């Protein structure tokens, strides 16, 4: 089982590295966006799928990462690519810790409510603190080149930026996958199943939950930081309730039951969004309807659907093999 997962990951990585050879700039650009949103979705799913913590405020970390990167690049001259990303991630991690510290003692509905309230606070700050964020106008930024000593990478090139995103964001997604298999990752799943028992066994569930919240904040911040670099622009959209809806859509279209669900979700979401926004100006409305449809009729998302289809197929094939041997 494990080797199959490794083989699948390896093949996917290989495919992603080779893709720019035979796809145009347009699709490479979309793939870059997909990888960024996949990390955003994965970080959200660590919270919801693994930790069973329903948050309606994940966009605050994403947006904070984006803003921190953009503000740092605009105000610190000569700041490199990686320091800017690290700064954005660090800000989001810190915010994750502080917000988590305040609200994690709440459970269920009131936790969801508080995450939304804090997201609204960050959104209001992004609009009101115009001297940092330029409010509704948004912040544009210049993507810095990466100097590796002997040669420098021209990040303004679509393919180069794709590879940078693939290597960095891709390996962070792999790290998250690795994390779910560590002792702490297992603890989180077990806490979801039976928290009281974990407490009796001597696990400090509050600290574990806060660590998870801080980690997912940081991961979302990294995704946000790349989002800012990808668009060379940050607006209040990045920190709005709409962005939280986006991550919810990604997670639920893909499926919150498995690690790969949100990655599949990001793929579907970006291509669907691209298609719908060509067809109609009201694509957000249709996205909302898709979301409600998924919640009502396909609560497990597409990954669950695929799983069921493949299971049915296997059962069907085995049944047919049995009848053919019985007949022959």
């Amino acid at each position, binding site marked *: 089982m494990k080797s199959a997962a490794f083989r699948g990951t390896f093949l996917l990585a290989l495919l992603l590295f080779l893709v720019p050879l035979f796809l145009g700039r347009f699709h490479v650009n979309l793939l870059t966006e997909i990888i960024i949103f996949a990390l955003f979705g994965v970080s959200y799913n660590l919270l919801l799928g693994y930790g069973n913590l329903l948050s309606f405020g994940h966009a605050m970390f994403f947006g904070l990462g984006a803003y921190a990167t953009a503000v740092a690049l605009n105000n610190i001259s000569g700041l490199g690519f990686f320091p800017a990303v690290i700064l954005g991630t660090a800000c989001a991690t810190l915010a994750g810790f502080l917000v988590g510290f305040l609200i994690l003692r709440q459970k269920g509905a009131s936790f969801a409510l508080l995450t939304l309230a804090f997201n609204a606070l960050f959104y209001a700050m992004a609009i009101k603190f115009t001297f940092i964020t330029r409010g509704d106008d948004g912040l544009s930024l210049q993507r810095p080149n990466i100097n590796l000593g002997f040669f420098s990478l021209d990040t303004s090139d679509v393919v180069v930026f794709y590879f940078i995103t693939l290597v960095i964001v891709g390996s962070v997604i792999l790290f998250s996958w690795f994390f779910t298999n560590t002792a702490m990752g297992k603890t989180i799943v077990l806490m979801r199943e039976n928290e009281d028992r974990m407490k009796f066994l001597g696990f400090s569930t509050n600290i574990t939950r806060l660590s998870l919240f801080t980690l997912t904040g940081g991961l979302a911040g990294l995704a946000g930081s790349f989002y800012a670099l990808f668009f060379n622009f940050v607006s209040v959209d990045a920190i709005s*309730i709409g962005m939280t809806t986006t991550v919810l859509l990604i997670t639920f279209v893909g499926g919150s039951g498995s690690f790969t669900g949100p990655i599949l979700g990001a793929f579907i979401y970006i291509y669907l969004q691209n298609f719908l926004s060509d067809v109609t100006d009201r694509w957000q*409305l249709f996205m909302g309807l898709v979301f409600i449809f998924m919640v009502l009729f396909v*609560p497990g998302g597409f990954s669950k659907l695929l799983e069921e289809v493949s299971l049915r197929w296997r059962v069907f094939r085995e049944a047919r093999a049995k009848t053919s041997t019985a007949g022959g």
Partner: protein
Amino acid sequence: MKSILIFFLHGLTYAGLLFLVSSGLSLVFGMMNVLNFAHATFYMLGAYFSYSLLRTTNNFWLSLVVAPALLFFIGALVERFLLRRVHVLGHVHELLLTFGLAYVFTELVKWVWGTNPLPVPITGFLAQSVNLFGITYPVYRIFVFSTSVLVGILMILILYKTRLGIIIRGAVDDSDMVGALGINVPTLFMAIFGFGAALSGFAGVIAGPLLTTFPGMGDAILVDAFVVIVVGGLGSLGGAVVASLIIGQLQSFGVLLFPKFSLALIYLLMAVVLVVRPSGLFGRQT
């Protein structure tokens, strides 16, 4: 001194609106254990329905009846055909559904009415001002506050003095037991959800002329209503009254004293309540 009085009255007006929105939210939560993230969009829809009704009939009193009635039906339909379906899937899916509905309703409003703020004019004696303790104050704001007080008193009378009220309070405590006693709980839930939506829509109708009607108006009051519920305690009507009054005043004087940071005061209050008394001022300790 005069400005303090004016800001105090402004605070009362806003507290009235907040109470109307948050009491419905709190009632639905107390009973069905569903936190309705679409609640404030009912408020926004109320304001937009009233705008359209005013444009066609030019009768404010009519819109004050018709818009909440429409929202009662919308709310009841949402409960009957959407929320009840996902109930079996669990709590997370119920919250997700209401969150998705809020998004879709907001997008629909942008589609139908556009994104520009729409002014709702008021006419007749409501548009005038009166002399109150030496200051001139618009009649409409007094109307908003007194209407919310009236609705609040009516709600308390229904909840504590009628048979229906006993059933509702019983269902808040233990809906299974109420069902076992022969009350049709699903229909009751549908009616309460519709009533909450109507109450929120009613608040929207009276808020329309006061604050302009725009697609973000729901989000603006939703957060304040959430803070009211956190501070007052989930599912407590008395808590909603007290917290609405506190937050109305905080909003009003916050703008007067620290214009840029008025929002911070509310969050500060919320943070203090969360740390000192996580279940809210009037919430049951769990």
